[in-house]
Structures are given as C-alpha cells and as structure tokens.
C-alpha cells in the first residue's frame, strides 16, 4: 500500500512540475510527456515554421499553403476555382482569370505544384500548377501569394504531365494524358489507334520579375497517354522526360486493355534541339485557339489575350528530338535524381523499379542502339539504357523523391508504404507504412539539385479511421516523416484541402522577407480607383450605376446611396484606403448573386449587383476590422423602375446629388 502511494505521489509530483513548465514548453522536453515526435513538430505559439509547403488542392482546383513541421494551414490560394471567401472569380477584376476558349470555366482539377528554379534549386519567385481537366497552367506570385497568370494549353486533353520546370524555369511542360484527334475534330473513338495523337507543349517563362508564360512550341506525338514528367538537371539539363502508358492504343476498358504490354516508354525530349529546329523554321504553324490571362498588381485587374496559333514540331521531321526508353510497366512518375544522372521510372504495375542512366542513354543514342522506330521516334534498347533495378521493393510504385544524401524514397500505393533505397547499389535500406494508400510524396526541394533532406511528406488517398469521422466524405491526409536519420520516423498526420496530388516545399527564409504587406495606394492604376474620400461619387451611365467608394477603419464613403432604380446594374468599385499590413476590408450587399469583395489595403475591387426588388438594401464590411467594425455598414435604396429620381449619396454631413 505504501509503495503504491509513493508511486502515485511521485507521479503527481511530476505532473505538478511539468504542469508549471515555466518556459511554455518551448525547446524543453518537459511538458511533452516524453513524446519525441510531438516535440519535433511543435512550433511554439508565435514562432514560425521552417518550411513553406504548397499542396495541390486536386479536385478543389486550388493550392493550400502549410507550414512544416507543424502542419498548420496558412492560406488556400484560389487558382482554378471560384472562391467566395476571397471573391476570386466572382469580382469583376478576377473573372477574366477563369476565361478559356470554352468560355468561363469556374473549376479545375489541380495536380502538381512546381516552384520556379534557378540553377536547379527552388528560388521562391513563383509557384506553377497545372489544371488537368481544361488544360491550363497557372502561375502564383510568391510575393503576394496570388494567382497572377493562367495560360490555356491548346491541342491537349488531360493536362497531367505538367508543369515540371526545367533547371532555370526556361520551360514548363504540358503533356496530354488523353490523346485526341489533332487538330480537334469529331472522329469515332473506335478509330483511336489510327487517328488519335498526343501533344507535348513547352511553355516558356520570362526570366524577369513578371515570369510571363508563352507557348514556345508543341511536339506532335503518337497517341499514347503521357502521364508524368520531370526535366533533367546538371548534365541532363536540356532534356525533359515524360512517362507513357497505353502504348497499346486501347480506346476502351483501358483498365485491362492499356495494361497488356510488358514495357511502355519514357519519352526523352531534347528541348535544346527543339529550340534549334524552331529557330531553323522546321515547325508547322497550327491554328490553335487558347487564352492567356494575366493579372496586374498595378491595375488590380486581369485581362484575357486571345491566341490563335502554335508552332508544332513533328519528330519524324526532326531527328534527335525525341527518343523512347522502354520502361516496365505503365510507368507513372518519372523522377530525376539530384545529380541528373538517374531517371527513375515508377512502373506502377511492375514488380521492380527501373532506373535509367542519362549517360548510357547518350551513348546508346550515339551508337544508334535502337530496337525499332515508332512514327519516326527511335526506341532505344532497354539493356543499353538501364542503370539498375530495385528488386521487389513493394507493390504499385508511383513516385520517387530524393534527400540529396544518396537515397531515394518511393511511394507504393498498393502496399501503402514509403521505401527508402540507395542510388547506385539499388538496395532497400528502410520502409515505413503510410495511412493509407500513398500517392505522391514530397521532400522539400526533393526534385531539385539540392534537396533539404530533413522531412518527407506522404500524400495519401485514403484516410478511413485516422480522424474523427465526418460522414461519407473524409479529409485526405498528409503525413510528415523525419528522414534525418537512418530510419524514417512518422511524426504527424494532418488533413488537407481537396485531394493533394503533388506538393512542393521550400525553406521559409527564401520567401518570407519578400512577402508583400500592402499595395501602395500611389501605385494603384485601377481605372475605377478613388484615392481619397473627397473623390468618392456615384455615376449613372444609362442603366449602369457606378458607385466609387472607399473604406477605412471603420466606415465606407459614401455609406448611403439613393436613386438606384429597378433594372439598373450596379457596380461597386471599392478602394481600400488603408496602408497597413493585415487590414483588408470586406464588402457585401444583400441579395448579391455572386460573393463578397475582400479588398487588400491599397487595392480596388468591383462587385456587380443587380437588385431584384424595390427596397432598402444594407451593405457592410465582412472582415472584422476594428472595435467599430459592426458600425461599418450602409444602405442602398432601390426605387421602382419608373421613379423620377436622381442619384444621391453621402457620408455624415456630406451630401451630394447627380447633376
């Protein structure tokens, strides 16, 4: 009895001691109840994470920004989908961002975030991401964390093998996962094998601070499915590698019929050669309709440019442009190691993992070690290009990343695990389960020349019992592993937005000091900006009513408008006069059929509003801005259509009327 009591006392005392941990648990083992993993992911309140992680939103169409190692969500950046929270795609300024040759497309399936690189290392300027469904690539400016450009990819379908940058972001790429008749026309699906083709698109990025995207050229390919890609680095800089499946050219029941061949291909594209052919005029000009949408931080508005043609190269006319590397079996990811020598083909139906050698590939090309040609594209002999095979690593390999210390990490979807293996010896050194069914994985900088080989994030397809249940639909999951030691160690689960496919991460120091705090009012070139209350006004142009208003803590000017008539279309042009960090103002008006505005300091945004009834309609600030936020409200009076009234507006003692 006494012993027992003593033990209890000792235990209670230890609780007392740890309970009053004086330094708040920061950097101290006390208070962490002996959990090493918890300590490794604990970022104390007010402290910053070591890495920014950018996770694709999958079928949400967006990008989410997390901190590592904490797994804390900082922001969801709207990219391909309308976002009522931020008014993106709803306000007049950002609507053009979602315009395509198919009209306004307010959703997409975003898959692979890719950081811009300089010398093969993420440089923190831009993040790019592909839209899979209506083929597009978007650019996010990492000073503002806003989408600033979207370019549509013509002659394409299922833009999956994208964007995957080259070493200095000379190019982003875009390959067709779904081959189609090119040019696009109505052909029987049964004629797939004869009439469908693939297309590999190279999008250039200007090296300045704008990072302007343009389609430089396209390459017309056999009608396979082009699944994923990665560009070479170091010695292999100048090449981009694309995986293929359905080399059977099946058009139906692909689950079976596209899985017949023992080997499919990795297509190796020599894009420096392509540049030479383009320069020499060996391209075909193909009529192609696509849009290029650009957002300006000065006008705070997007514009759409209509494009009408692309330059297309045909491999049979351009020797040395493309080679096929036989790779078992329906390879999914293709990943190039930090040295640029090894090209890993993750054959998702293969028992083994195939690794090709870049230097062997060059020798095989020089020796013309071809086993055959397909549509003028030489197929290199497998045994002349393969560097090694990782034998029986697991079931269903999908993706590989690298730690920069000589190891590779591959995900296995079917056996639900991450396997660590050694480059060069191909031996398996460690494996750890994922919960559950891992797809992509990400090591910060893990597809670059210099990975930060400290953490690994697995991006899982199935969550099942990992979190509190939320009905039939469950959060997708990310899991954080410590890979700094010999053995991988699971540290943390955190839920994600939509379905995370790929992700990228970068040391926080590279980005955080460049982050913009507010837009300078003096630089605001929005055509409807008003820069002080004196200039606020309401104007009628036929049945359009333009309200030029301002916001500052905590009132709108004007805060009442009368003289709007039923049948009018009202545009509220709101300029936020604040010039300080973290003081956005929101704007909402009753019955609006779109969303709110969320206007950053120094910015101007426009909400279109068509009143449907006579009455008095409140408007108010939606983003809690000060102690008097609840007072930040006003009214718009809507008169009958035939009312004989003039527009009038005001604030406090100021009252004005249209002439």
């Amino acid at each position: 009895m006494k012993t027992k009591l003593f033990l209890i006392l000792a235990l209670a005392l230890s609780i007392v001691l740890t309970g009053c941990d004086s330094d708040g648990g920061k950097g101290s083992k006390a208070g962490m109840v002996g959990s090493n993993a918890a300590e490794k992911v604990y970022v104390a309140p007010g402290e910053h994470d070591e890495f920014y992680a950018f996770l694709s939103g999958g079928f949400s169409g967006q990008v989410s920004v997390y901190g590592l190692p904490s797994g804390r969500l900082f922001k969801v950046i709207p990219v391909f989908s309308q976002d009522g929270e931020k008014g993106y795609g709803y306000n007049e300024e950002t609507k053009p961002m979602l315009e395509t040759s198919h009209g306004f497309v307010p959703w997409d399936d975003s898959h692979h975030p890719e950081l811009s690189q300089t010398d093969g290392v993420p440089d923190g300027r831009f993040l790019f991401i592909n839209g899979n469904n209506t083929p597009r690539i978007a650019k996010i400016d990492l000073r503002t964390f806003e989408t600033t450009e979207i370019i549509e990819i013509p002659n394409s379908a299922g833009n999956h093998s994208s964007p995957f940058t080259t070493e200095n972001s000379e190019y982003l790429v875009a390959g067709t996962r779904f081959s189609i008749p090119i040019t696009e026309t109505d052909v029987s699906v049964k004629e797939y094998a004869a009439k469908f083709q693939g297309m590999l698109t190279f999008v250039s990025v200007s090296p300045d601070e704008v990072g302007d995207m343009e389609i430089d050229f396209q390459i017309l390919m056999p009608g396979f499915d082009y699944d994923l890609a990665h560009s070479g680095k170091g010695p292999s800089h100048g090449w981009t590698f694309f995986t293929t499946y359905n080399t059977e050219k099946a058009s139906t029941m692909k689950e079976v019929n596209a899985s017949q061949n023992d080997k499919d291909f990795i297509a190796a594209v020599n894009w420096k050669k392509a540049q030479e052919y383009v320069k020499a005029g060996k391209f075909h000009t193909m009529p192609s309709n696509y849009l290029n949408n650009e957002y300006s931080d000065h006008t705070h508005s997007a514009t759409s440019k209509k494009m009408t043609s692309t330059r297309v190269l045909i491999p049979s006319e351009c020797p040395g442009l493309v080679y096929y590397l036989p790779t078992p079996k329906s390879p999914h990811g293709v990943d190039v190691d930090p040295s640029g020598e090894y090209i890993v083909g993750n054959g998702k139906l293969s028992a083994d993992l195939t690794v090709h050698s870049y230097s062997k590939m060059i020798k095989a090309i020089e020796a013309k070690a071809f086993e055959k040609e397909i549509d003028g594209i030489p197929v290199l002999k497998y045994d002349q290009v393969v560097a090694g095979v990782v034998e029986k690593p697991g079931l269903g390999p999908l993706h590989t990343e690298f730690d920069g210390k000589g190891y590779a990490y591959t995900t296995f979807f079917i056996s639900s695990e991450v396997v660590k293996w050694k480059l060069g010896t191909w031996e398996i050194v460690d494996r750890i389960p994922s919960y559950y069914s891992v797809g992509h994985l990400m090591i910060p900088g893990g597809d670059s020349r210099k990975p930060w080989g400290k953490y690994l994030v697995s991006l899982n397809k199935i969550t099942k019992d990992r979190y509190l249940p939320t009905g039939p639909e469950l959060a997708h999951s990310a899991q954080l592993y410590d890979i700094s030691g010999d053995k991988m160690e699971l540290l943390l689960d955190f839920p994600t937005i939509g379905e995370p496919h790929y992700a990228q991460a970068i040391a926080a120091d590279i980005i955080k000091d460049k982050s913009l705090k507010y837009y300078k009012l003096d630089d605001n070139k929005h055509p409807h900006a008003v820069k002080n209350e004196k200039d606020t006004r309401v104007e009628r142009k036929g049945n359009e009513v333009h309200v030029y208003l301002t916001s500052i803590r905590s009132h709108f000017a004007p805060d009442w408008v009368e003289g709007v008539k039923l049948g009018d279309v009202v545009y509220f042009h709101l300029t936020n006069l604040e010039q300080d960090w973290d003081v956005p103002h929101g704007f909402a008006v009753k019955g609006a059929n779109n969303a709110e505005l969320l206007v950053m300091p120094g910015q101007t945004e426009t909400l279109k509003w068509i009143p449907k009834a006579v009455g008095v309609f409140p408007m108010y600030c939606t983003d809690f801005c000060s102690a008097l936020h609840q007072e930040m409200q006003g009214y718009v009076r809507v008169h009958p259509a035939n009312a004989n009234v003039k527009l009038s507006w005001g604030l406090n003692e100021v009252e004005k009327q249209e002439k």
Partner: protein
Amino acid sequence: MIKTMALFALSIFMLVACGEAGDAQLEKNASSETEAVESAASETAGNDGLGVGPVKSVTIGALDAAMAKEGEDLFTKNCTACHKIEAKFVGPALAGVTERRKPEWIMNMIMNPEQMVKEDPVAKELLAEFLAPMANQHITEEQARKIVEYFRQVDSK
C-alpha cells in the same frame, strides 16, 4: 481513500503553485497600469510630451507655405477619411493641435500609432475616448513633417 486524498491534496498544491505565479504576473501588470494612468494625469511626464517613436527632435522655423501645401495634399489623401480640422469625426478635430502637442508628438502619432496608443499617456487617453485606434498609413518622416507644417499654417490663421 488515502490514495484519493493524497492526489486531491497534490492537485490543490499544483493549482496553488501555478496560481501564485499567475497572480504575481497580474500584480506586476496592474502596477505598471497604475503608473501609466498616473503619468497620464501629469500629461508631459515620461516622454516630455514628445511621444514615443522615431522622432526625437524637430526644428521649427518660420512657416514654409510650399511645405504646408504639400502637407495639405498628404493630409487630404491619407487622413481625411477620419480627421477633420474643425469637427470631431472618427478621430479628434485637429484645429489647435500644434498648440496642444509638440511637433515630435504629432509626427510620432502619425508614424507610430500602434506603440503610441499603448505607451504614450496622452495617446492612451485619446484611444479610450475615441475607441478607433489610429490607422498606420506608412507616412515617412519627411511627409509627417510636411503635415505638421500644414497644421501650423491652419493654427496660424
């Protein structure tokens, strides 16, 4: 039973132990609060009416009309959403401000409002009265000086 009591006693001890530390902290805060209020009463105590911020000393000479004009433009653009010269609005009326406050105080209030409303006794009292903390519009020292010149011109009339 003994077991339960022992645990209970210990938990009390734990609460007391943590509570005491907490109280001490509170007392400390409370006493600095009192100090601040006292110094507010004496107006110029603490910072000699210069306010808290980057501006330590300003030389004032004859009224510079060109400078005042630039100050007026800056004032119109950055301040008039909340301040009027003659009337109380979101913030106080500014007529006579150069008689009530030193130029350093005015410039620090413009450039460093967050710290001013926390630390300067006069600014603290103004926040308590108006409740809307003054917005930081990121005015430079040179611009703030021009705004002061405009206020001097207004007050000289």
